[in-house]
């Protein structure tokens, strides 16, 4: 065997490096680390490891500002998923990840493989996945191809999640023209593990076997730049990188096989092969453990013939995992993987050299020192520009063109507020038999933990239009809304995962949005004791130079000690309606302003974190004392929309009182002031007294009963009519997206 791999000619190498996305100075660093020109395989490894996706080179400096610690945090960012202690010796393991670009190219497979990838991040750590959520941002349905994208994404998420048998229990959807060329698909998985049985990726033990399990490797998703290269062969059609196809059936087997193996003591470390497949998994496992790793690529199970080392290392074939086993335990693992009819191969071993060494067909293909691959990775503090502040709008200065009754009917049927039933009806939300609150039933989904009284409350939230207008307040608001949604069910919010979707970070105004959003998120996380334990960054979401709305999607997880404490949002008759939190009638950036007044402007509602905390802690306390029959946080659309949502969910109407003097009616009904809840309680007086004692603003705003929402002016809007307007929108839009 030769001592150095076949090296690229210097000019050719520099040219390829540029094609693979390495900047000239980044490539100089590659040369310095290697002390020579790279082989093609080595260049591939550097280019993917130093890509924005794997290295977080633009975002790392900012992400450091996020709080990641709390007494209940077992594992913060840095592993495949975050881990928190939820009591009883149990841990919740969760993360959210984007699959934006693949979902635009091939919506079904893009979304499906997104779900597959995030599931692997979670069961890699030893957790059984118990819930999936999805945060979606679509363009306008009449934009080119958009209905197909919506249809494909929803089918893909359902197709994958339903098949693997993990209930899809929640999520969120927004529509905005700024997503026309760049829809966002963020998938979140939550799993449960024993707190003392968490698996991580750090390799250890010289000589320990490196084991590949799952599906075979094909040429799926290899860096597009290779397409242009004629380096390998003439028959380019055969070698063309292809779209990744998800195989949820294999994933299901992989989940069962991995969990079965994890119950033995055979595993030292485990990592899924996600983006940059074998490269990132082997580099990260060895790197985290301070080890070296040597792989015989001939042993990699291959789906296609004639694959090169470069292709195998960069393939993004799905449903694959890499493990380090204890010596002599290969047969234990092999028996389990054979039982589940999955590929199993020992493809290498750990070394003490601190290098990654790859061999293929008797030739050395790569030999790189691991430490500098990580420590010398590019890191940018890119220039930032602040988003200019927008004026605070005065509700009194904005004319109400239609009145509350018509506005309500328009709003409940509008794209951002209409029922998502068309979506969740395609997701199995019940499999597992533990879903206590399905989509639409409560502000957060509630899933009980098997053989336990405990339940998790889960939600995803972000209001991108606020983030565009004021990224810092928007970042704060996204975290606060997730916290509020969990609180509104009686759950104790514990931690978040985030998915930072932004445009081109090389533009100062985009990097400024990012930095400000992180600042706002961090402030909210600290004030609400709601640390970040995992996350994902997706940049360059731009089409023709126009970026998406800044979208820091937040996935929140909380716990209920007893599932019986959970409350939903369905209104029943005979209850007092109590509004908690302060209302000023904030119309800037509200949906009322956009949908009724036709304006998208003004400063978004500020989040007073002290009030948020105080109000939420009080509401949760009342729920846990059993004082609250139904509860809903106030967000998009404000008070009247929240009341309508509760009415529709429970099938009961309400008679509503007029708002306080001094707040214009449209501000009162549709303002989006933060930190508020609408509670339905048996004893309103007792609740108001409790609120007063706690220093929490609260007023009675009506009483439930009847079959309509009755406004103070006497207008009565039947719940059936509201529901009709609410339910009609998506099915009507998607009817002709059809089924073929």
């Amino acid at each position, binding site marked *: 065997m030769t001592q150095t791999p076949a090296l690229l000619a210097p000019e050719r190498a520099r040219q390829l490096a540029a094609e693979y996305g390495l900047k000239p100075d980044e490539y100089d660093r590659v040369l310095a680390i290697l002390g020579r020109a790279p082989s093609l395989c080595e260049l591939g490894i550097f280019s993917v490891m130093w890509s924005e996706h794997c290295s977080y080179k633009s975002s790392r400096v900012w992400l450091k500002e996020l709080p990641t610690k709390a007494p209940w945090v077992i594992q913060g960012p840095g592993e495949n998923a975050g881990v928190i202690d939820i009591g009883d010796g149990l841990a919740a393991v969760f993360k959210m990840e984007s699959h934006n670009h693949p979902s635009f190219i091939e919506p079904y497979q893009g979304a499906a493989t997104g779900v597959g990838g995030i599931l692997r991040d979670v069961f890699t750590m030893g957790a059984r996945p118990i819930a999936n959520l999805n945060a979606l941002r679509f363009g306008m349905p009449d934009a080119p191809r958009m209905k197909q994208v919506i249809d494909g994404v929803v*089918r893909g998420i359902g*197709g994958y999640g*339903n098949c693997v048998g993990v209930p899809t229990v929640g999520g969120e959807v927004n529509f905005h023209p700024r997503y026309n060329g760049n829809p966002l698909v963020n998938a979140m998985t939550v799993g449960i593990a024993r707190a003392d049985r968490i698996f991580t990726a750090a390799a250890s033990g010289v000589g320990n076997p490196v084991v590949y399990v799952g599906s075979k490797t094909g040429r799926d998703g290899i860096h597009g730049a290779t397409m242009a290269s004629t380096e390998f062969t003439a028959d380019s059609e055969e070698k063309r990188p292809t779209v990744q196809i998800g*195989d*949820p059936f294999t994933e*299901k087997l992989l989940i069962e096989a991995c969990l079965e193996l994890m119950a033995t003591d055979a595993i030292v470390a485990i990592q899924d092969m996600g983006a940059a497949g074998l490269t990132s998994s082997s580099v990260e496992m060895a790197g985290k453990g301070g080890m070296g790793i040597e792989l015989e690529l001939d042993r990699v199970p291959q789906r296609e013939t004639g694959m090169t080392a470069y292709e195998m290392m960069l393939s993004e074939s799905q449903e694959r995992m890499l493990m380090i086993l204890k010596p002599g335990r290969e047969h234990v693992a092999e028996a389990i993987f054979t039982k589940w009819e999955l590929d199993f191969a020992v493809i290498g071993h750990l070394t003490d050299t601190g290098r990654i060494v790859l061999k293929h067909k008797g030739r050395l293909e790569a030999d790189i020192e691991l430490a500098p691959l990580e420590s010398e990775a590019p890191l940018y503090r890119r220039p930032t520009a602040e988003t200019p502040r927008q004026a605070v709008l005065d509700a009194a200065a904005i004319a109400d063109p239609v009145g509350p009754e018509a506005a309500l009917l328009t709003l409940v049927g509008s794209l951002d507020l209409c029922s998502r039933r068309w979506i969740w*009806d395609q997701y199995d939300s*019940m499999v597992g*038999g533990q879903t206590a609150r399905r989509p639409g039933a409560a502000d957060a989904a509630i899933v009980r933990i098997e053989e336990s009284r405990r339940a998790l409350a889960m939600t995803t939230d972000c209001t991108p239009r606020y983030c565009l207008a004021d990224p810092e307040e928007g970042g704060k608001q996204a975290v606060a809304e997730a916290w509020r949604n969990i609180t509104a069910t009686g759950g104790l919010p514990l931690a978040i995962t985030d998915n930072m979707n932004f445009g081109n970070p090389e533009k100062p105004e985009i990097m400024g949005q990012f930095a400000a959003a992180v600042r706002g998120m961090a402030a909210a996380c600290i004030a609400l004791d709601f640390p970040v334990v995992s996350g994902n960054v997706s940049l360059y979401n731009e089409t023709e130079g126009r970026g998406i709305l800044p979208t820091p999607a937040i996935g929140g997880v909380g716990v209920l000690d007893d599932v019986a404490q959970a409350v939903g949002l369905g209104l029943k008759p005979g209850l007092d309606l109590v509004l908690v939190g302060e209302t000023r009638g904030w119309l800037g950036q509200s949906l009322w302003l956009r949908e009724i007044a036709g304006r998208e402007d003004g400063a978004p509602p500020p989040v007073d974190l002290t009030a948020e905390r105080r109000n939420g802690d009080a509401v949760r306390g009342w729920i846990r004392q059993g004082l609250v029959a139904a509860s809903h946080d106030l967000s998009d659309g404000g008070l009247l929309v929240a009341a309508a949502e509760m009415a529709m969910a429970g099938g009961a109407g309400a008679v509503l009182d007029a708002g306080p003097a001094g707040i214009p009616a449209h501000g009162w009904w549709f303002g989006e002031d933060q930190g508020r809840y609408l509670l339905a309680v048996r004893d309103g007086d007792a609740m108001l007294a409790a609120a007063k004692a706690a220093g929490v603003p609260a007023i009675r705003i009506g009483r439930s009963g009847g079959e309509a929402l009755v406004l103070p002016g006497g207008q009565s809007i039947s719940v059936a009519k509201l529901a009709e307007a609410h339910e009609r929108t998506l099915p009507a839009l998607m009817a002709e997206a059809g*089924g073929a």
Partner: protein
Amino acid sequence: MRAGIVLFPGTNRERDMALALQRVTGHRPEMLWHRDTALPAGTDLVVLPGGFSYGDYLRCGAMAAQSPIMQAIKAFADQGGHVLGVCNGFQMLTEAGLLPGALLRNATLRFLSMDCRMRVERTDTPYTNRFQRGQVFRSTMAHGDGNYFADDATLERLEGEGLVALRYATPAGEATAAANRNGSARNIAGILSPNLRVLGLMPHPENQVDPEIDGTDGLPLFESLAATLATAAA
């Protein structure tokens, strides 16, 4: 009652089913493996649970129907054993020829995950004796291929012999087209074998057995079984 739940590659509602059976028997049923060639001695109920056996590739339930354990289950059924197939399990029963007909793609061509209501057509069966005749109960469905199909002669025979166990219906008990989301022939949600011991149905009553989760509408089905098999064993 000694129940066994069969696990196929891709099965995913086995734990739901185990919880439902445990609720009425007090103990966890046994999990059986698709490659087994015999059932444990003393088995009196075999359940083919929901899921996506073999990924639902080719046809739902087709590959599972060829599993080694299916031979044993056929023999068990021939000898009068009780076999319950839910969702993917129902599809397997038709693919294996233990029940007639087939389950086609939903008429909507979409996966349907939603509440449905079923009318109990007869109560003198091992699965329905704790229901009232004509009772309508709520369950959830979660399937892409639940559109029951059989040729007219088969349908006439099923009707004539009273082997239609459950029909999709409105809360008031009418078997309307609107209540029949997947497009099943004659609103059929579940059918029985001539000896009434094999039942296949598409919805998931095992998800409606716990007041804290989604109500207890499905519980009578499992109580019926427990009562029947307890008597049988006594």
